[in-house]
């Protein structure tokens, strides 16, 4: 695992200027384009929270998804299909699940750093929206969200061989989670049947559980444990797929 963390640090350091710029620009742009306009349409959530307060966990989770995508894409698609640099990793005397976890957790570290910066930027843009007591929970559930979403992107990267197919699937996934996982729009805005279905999506469960603990002060066991369980199952599936794809 330490090898993957050091590698991630080297990758970050080797493109330091663009990494630092990205760490500030992405949270700033996402905060502006998603919250400034929408908070004038949806002033308060259904349970009475100001929109900029209610949307913060969803925004951070979406930010985690946007940030982890290129890191996962690069390692599991680009370095597998185009550059073949994934091959020597799979030859090392380590399990495929260690490779999956190593890449995923090291990418997650970079994402956490940017999420913390994002929270700082958000607190400047909306001074009343970030409660200190909420920060820990938001980061924790963003990590759960990023791990689950990261595994979905790994699955997508391993299942596709062509960049056009991968990009189409990726954009569809990103736009879908933006609207149907309760990140920016509450489930109640959708027709009842759709709303019910959407709430059972594993990624939706994470945002529901996070808001439950932040705004209702109730730990939602089912919606916390279920996404973690699915993440673990996906790690097993992705390890198997990686082994198959590498013909090993």
């Amino acid at each position: 695992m330490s090898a993957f963390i050091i590698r991630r640090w080297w990758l970050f350091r080797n493109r330091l200027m663009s990494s630092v710029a990205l760490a500030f620009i992405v949270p700033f742009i996402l905060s502006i384009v998603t919250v400034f306009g929408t908070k004038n349409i949806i002033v308060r959530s259904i349970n009475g929270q100001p929109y900029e307060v209610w949307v913060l966990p969803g925004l951070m989770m979406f930010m985690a998804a946007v940030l982890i995508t290129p890191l996962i894409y690069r390692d599991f698609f680009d370095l597998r299909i185009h550059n073949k640099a994934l091959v020597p990793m799979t030859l090392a005397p380590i399990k495929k699940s260690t490779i999956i976890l190593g890449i995923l957790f090291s990418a997650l570290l970079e994402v956490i750093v940017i999420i913390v910066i994002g929270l700082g930027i958000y607190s400047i843009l909306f001074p009343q929206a970030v409660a200190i007591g909420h920060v820990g929970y938001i980061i924790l559930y963003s990590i759960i969200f990023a791990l689950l979403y990261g595994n979905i992107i790994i699955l997508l990267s391993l299942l596709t061989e062509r960049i056009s197919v991968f990009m189409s699937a990726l954009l569809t996934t990103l736009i879908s989670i933006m609207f149907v996982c309760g990140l920016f729009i509450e489930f109640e805005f959708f027709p009842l049947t759709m709303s019910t279905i959407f709430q059972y999506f594993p990624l939706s469960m994470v945002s529901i559980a996070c808001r439950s603990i932040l705004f209702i002060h109730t730990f939602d066991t089912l919606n916390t444990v279920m996404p973690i369980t699915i993440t673990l199952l996906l790690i097993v599936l992705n390890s198997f797929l990686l082994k198959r794809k590498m013909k090993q």
Partner: protein
Amino acid sequence: MEASITLKKVGKLVGDKTILAGLTFGIEKGSIVALVGDNDAGKSTMLRLIAGLENPNYGAVFLHGLDTEKRRIETRQTVAFLPHDIDLDPWLTLEQNIQFDARLYGEHQDRIESRINEYSHALDMGDFLYSMAGRVPQGIQKKAMIIRALAHDPTILIMDEPTAFMDAESRRLTWDLMRKLRGDKTIVYSSQFLPEIEAANDRIMVIHNGSVLLDGSLDKLLESTLEYHQFAIEFEELSDELFNSLCGVTTVVNPTKVGNTFHFYGRSRKVFFEVLNACSGVLMKDLSIEKLSLQDLLDSAFAQKGMDG
């Protein structure tokens, strides 16, 4: 002598096509073995099977007596694979690429650095080690890949075209290093550079259609060509009639016509005089007589039938 690598009835299929068919052989510890053959002979597949990059459809590959499929983790610790194509991470420096790979094998930092210093000096890498992999010439990247393969101190080194993309000096340094490693490491490689193979190996395996056609030292393989010579006679004009008449000389082997030059093989110089008799009165411009080399041996007509076939 102890075998580092043993293949037992190993077969590999891709779809309906047989890439390797029932291979059984052993490779002695510390030897350098060259695989040669046509482009689709199955050399790369054999190397990938030995390195554990692919599994055989049937049979088993053993490294130091351990089955590569059943004892995957242990066998991988002992082997390194150098592919033909560049597979370095372009966003890391060459040194970082090497360090990362060696760390995956659980090597300690000081030992990794010591090996990087030793091998980069041997291959004259200079300051390139600290350049981004994507920004250096492919020949330099290939040298870095050799260092990466050696950084975890494997006992078996598998290389597919190890000197591809390299200039003459780099090729020389690479083979100097390989010769230095002989005895300590078992080296199996494929190459299209036949002069390199003639210069550095203990054993040559000629692969054809997924089978080992010839196997032995260079001297042993060339024994079959003993007393054979390659003749070339350039005529003022080599008509079809004359060519057919020369082909009729019973001691002439594998005759071919290139322009006005008649090429053929013969077991002794006596053949040359028989050919001269057959073409008396025709004006000749030039002639050459050469002893056979590995290239002649690999000529498909010979390789499939043998020199006397």
